[in-house]
């Protein structure tokens, strides 16, 4: 008679290699794991709470900052740990992000440094209100001899951006000019209007397209192939900055003076694709995450907000007690951090995801975090989880300002509704939120076709 015995091969539970974690046999019998929904809900709730507990967005400031306000930041496009900032007193500082130390500092311009851009070989282009664009060889630390090249302009420069793959750059002053690094004069004039141009930005994907914003409340799209402006959009208020989506060639975000950021499709500027609200003062700068999924804005209300591209309200808001009005924000090229330059002269480094940590994680920890993220995503609409995940402590001025703004907007809406009610039907149509800010475009679709 054969006697059956329990036998278990050690292969089942022992890891094949030393580095592997030993397998735990699990029993998936649903009887043994009741209340799955309730348990997962609780886990989601706890994960949400922990996220808030661990949220520590501020990493630190870079070095000791500038003496004057920081008005422009440039990130190195091919190195993760390098960035430069320019301040109001004409000083440019080059930073090592990993140590958060200053690599070098030099006075570049008389007066304010208005724009910085990184060239193909990693050098720095700066422009200022002293009618000059200067090329700095940042690899060479000795700047006593001045810049390696100077480009003279006819008026003060307000912005600069470099082409992604060619040695050309565009500047904005009273005109939008295209320059070649190897020539001393601009090679083309791309401007549309005679008005002052505030900023200029190259499209990083469709590389010959440039967007500029003018003080005549316009956004102009230029094409450096035809060396001409191609489309002009005029909005209700001035646009302070633009940024192209790095993975969607035709979309760009425009930070407007009216507290909002608008997402446009350059092919159809008669309406915006999305409106990012929540700021309580003019938005000074906007930058896309390199993944194109998020954008960060810096505002005159001294806060910095992060938006998901397909949502209308911010997912997070960063502020500190000492941070003044923000004039420039940038995502780092690895999407993990955000730099902000503000009026009081500090360059601050933030985590793009407040609760995340960048240390190396074990597989188990990583899978736990992923599980938590999935749970949070799944139960994000549950009232309690929603409340906790959305809760932010705000500085009092911003809190009150947002309250006031809310009340004001409500009152405007109410008044409009009243007027609408008392006027003839159809005479006061509702203005679409995404088209409200648009006054007009220069080249309309009908004109184009005809």
């Amino acid at each position, binding site marked *: 008679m054969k006697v059956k015995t329990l036998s278990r091969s050690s292969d089942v539970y022992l890891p094949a290699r030393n580095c592997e974690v030993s397998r735990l046999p*699990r029993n*998936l019998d649903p009887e043994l*794991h009741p209340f*799955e929904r309730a*348990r997962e*809900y609780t*886990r989601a709730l706890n994960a949400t709470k922990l996220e808030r507990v661990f949220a520590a967005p501020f990493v630190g400031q870079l070095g000791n900052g500038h003496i004057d306000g920081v008005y422009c930041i440039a990130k190195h*496009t*091919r*190195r*993760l740990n390098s960035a430069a900032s320019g301040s109001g007193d004409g000083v440019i500082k080059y930073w090592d992000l990993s140590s958060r130390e200053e690599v070098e500092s030099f006075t570049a311009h008389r007066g304010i440094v208005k724009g910085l851009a990184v060239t193909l070989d990693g050098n720095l282009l700066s422009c200022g209100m002293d009618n000059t664009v200067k090329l700095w060889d940042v690899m060479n630390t000795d700047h006593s001899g001045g810049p390696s090249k100077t480009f003279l302009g006819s008026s003060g420069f307000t912005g600069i951006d470099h082409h*992604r*793959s060619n040695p050309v750059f565009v500047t904005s002053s009273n*005109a939008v000019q295209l320059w*070649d690094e190897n*020539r001393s*004069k601009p*090679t*083309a004039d791309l401007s*549309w209007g*005679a008005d002052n141009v505030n900023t200029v930005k190259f499209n*990083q*994907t*469709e590389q010959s*397209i440039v967007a500029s914003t003018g003080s005549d409340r316009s956004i102009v*799209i230029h*094409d450096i192939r*035809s060396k*001409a*402006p*191609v*489309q002009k959009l005029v909005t209700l208020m001035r646009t302070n900055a633009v940024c192209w989506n*790095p*993975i*969607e*060639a*035709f979309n760009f975000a425009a930070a407007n003076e009216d507290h909002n950021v608008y997402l446009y499709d350059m*092919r159809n500027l008669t309406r915006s694709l999305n409106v990012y609200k929540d700021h309580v003062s003019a938005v000074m700068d906007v930058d896309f995450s*390199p*993944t*194109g*999924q998020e954008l960060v804005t810096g505002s005159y209300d001294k806060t910095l907000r992060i938006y998901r591209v397909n949502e209308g309200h911010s997912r997070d808001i960063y502020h500190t007690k000492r941070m003044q009005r923000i004039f420039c924000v940038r995502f780092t*090229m*690895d*999407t993990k951090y955000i730099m902000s330059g503000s009026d009081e002269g500090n360059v601050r480094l933030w985590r793009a995801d407040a609760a995340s940590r*960048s240390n190396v994680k074990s597989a188990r920890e990583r*899978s736990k975090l*992923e*599980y938590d*993220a*999935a749970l949070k995503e*799944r*139960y994000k*609409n*549950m*009232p309690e989880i929603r409340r906790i995940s959305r809760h932010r402590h705000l500085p009092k001025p911003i809190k009150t300002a947002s309250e006031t703004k809310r009340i004001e907007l409500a009152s405007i809406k109410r008044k409009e509704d009243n007027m609408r009610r008392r006027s003839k039907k159809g005479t006061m149509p509702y203005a679409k939120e995404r088209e409200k800010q648009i006054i007009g475009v*220069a*080249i309309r679709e009908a*004109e*184009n076709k005809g």
Partner: protein
Amino acid sequence: MVTVNKSDAKRPDVVAKKKLENALRQVEVAENVDNSDSEDSFLGVPDDDVDERSDGEDDVDLDIVDESRVLASGDGEDDSDDKDEPDDDETPSFSGVSDTEGSTHLTTATFSDIESDSVPSDLEEEEDDAMKSLQKAIEKASQKPAEDVITIRKRRKLGLPTHFAPTVDDSEDVMPAKKKVTLDDIRAHTSSSFGTRSLARLDELEKRSKGKSEVVKSRLGRRLEVRVDRAAAYEIAKEEVGKWEDTVKRNREAEHLEFPLQRSDGAATADITGALDLGDELDGEKLVHGLEGREFSLAEVAARRNELRRMRELMFREEMKAKRVKRIKSKTYRKIHKRERERAQEIAAQLEGESGDENNEGSYERLVKRARERMELRHKNTSDWARDVKRMNLHKSKGTRDELEQMLRRGEDLVRKIEGDDNEISGDDLPSINDDEEATDEASGIMAMKFMREAEERLRKRNKESIDELRRMEDGLDGETEQEDTDSAVKIINEGRRRYAPGAQKSKEAAEESVEQSNQEDDAPVPLERKMASIAVKDAGPASTISKKLMSKKGEPRNDGPKSSKTSNPWMLDVEPGSVAKGASVLSLSKESTRFAKTEAKLKRSLKKAKKAVQAVGDGEAEVRIDINQILQVRDVHGDPDAGPNFVNVEDSHVMMVHKGGRRAKPAEFQQRELVKRAFAGDDVVREFNEEKQRTVEDEGDKEVDVTLPGWGSWTGKGVRKPQKKFIQKIEGINPKNRQDAKLKNVIINEKAVKKSAKYTAGAVPFPYETREQYERSLRMPIGKQWSTQTTVQRLTKPKVIVKPGVVVEPLSAPFAT
């Protein structure tokens, strides 16, 4: 630069007239004036066009051109100048250039101006045009450049720069001109005087002042032109950007995005993928030249390469397998494989010899043989299990033994079956009406199969039905047994198979008789009307049954008449009208009259006929046999309308017997209801519900709770006050009048808000979901590893955006297509 009004433009001419010696210089000034003038006009228009800057250097360049121009005009060839002007007007607009006047001077001047600003290659066309005009001028000059030397000398004397050698910054574009015009060339011709030159110059200036108005006119056109240009450029830019559409769409729809999306040396990869996938889109197919000079597209090459790779891989695998098999030493394995091989060979042979009949037959026989063998062997003692049983002496236990025996018995059965199958030569399989039972008993071989049995069953059922029908008819139609006979005869005539039924011989004879009769009938003149009726009936589908019913009903009162009685049955038509059939019916009547009253019978007969007509016209099956009229009539006949439906008395049952066709259901229904009523006799649901509602209302309404503590205050002693009797707490509930179900009769609505569940309920259906069900479905399946397998968990928890840590995430560099 000096800005001078338009009116001042002529002043230098006067100066030129006054002193010819200084003419050159003056003209030079005039040039500058003109230039500035043009710029003035340009600035005068508050347009959004491109500004033109002119720095100090420009003057230097201008001078060169001026010289040449002056030289050109020196020979006084006005015509040639005239020719030049329109040329320059036509030159495509380049921002600043086209703004200026159409003259050669200015075009060239601005050209050089721009040249000094180092214009990139894009402007080359415009430059070319300008170059041509310049060269032309210089060539002209080189033909008769006599005075040039003088001017140069003079200028040297005056200490003015000659400006012939361009500065190093000035591009090589000017150089060809320099090559053509050498000092030696100029020296060769020295004839014309200053006077003619200056005059020519004056003429030209006049001409230019005239031309100005034209330019101003065309400026309006230019604005429009620019606008159109921009629109076109915008269109192109949109198109270019639109190429990303697919990429963007895919990225948006992607379940997961892993960054960096492209390799870090993005441009290179993108180029490759672009060449592979977008090749045909971009610039036709990128082609690769084969050895034979044939051109393959890249895609073709890739496909071929893949195919080859696959083949190689398969061959390698096969080889490995062969090696492995070769190494096996097991005899059993070899044996099995030998058999397999043989079988394969057989099949191969079979396939080969498929064309030859002999082989085919042989293989078929072999197969049959083998199948038989298998069937015989299966239930013998030879199976593994049986052998094991024997070997291990397990057949001593009763269960095993029984099983073994059962198996053997089954084997025997099967063998018998096979033999029986062989013995039995398939005769006529279709069972006739009467021998169906025998047939089932005898079933074997194919007939034993399930589907055959089912078919048989169906057939038998149908037969039975038809028999029932006939019997019922027999019962109903008092004396029409005879007719049934004739009917059967008719059927026999039509369906030859019936002859196999028992008593077929007899019926056959009868049939022959009836055939004769029918022949007689045919011979006999049939009334036209009747024929028509029969045709109509044949044509009409089942839809016309109702009308026929009506017809038959109408025909009832005069059913004794021959015309009305023959109604619509084609069978009847053939049989009835003749003398034989009618006689039969009469006969049957007399027979049946013993059972029922004759009057009743008469009525029923007419009814039956109508019914039959309906049947015949319909599918012929027992289809619809319920006729309300019939029932009513029957009731009338029996005269017991007051008998309630619940009571089934003898008479009723009798009637039911008679009219089996349609009326069986109704009393049964009543019976059922009665039964149900009896079964639930004690239940009063309505009352119970009302009580429950009352209870709920009370429960949820205001309540008074006695919270008196027993013993509290029941002190004794001197001066003790009398204790308060009761502490009653009132708990407010829901006012019965305000209840939601206060006015609803059969509903209880729960008024309690479930606080606990509110915490777990989303306020509204959240955004991407459209219905509550969708949202709930999304929450249903748990994610955790307690509830699903590792892979599922990984799949469910994989984040949407994954960024490789420590890597520069570069923007996309080219639309990708994979």
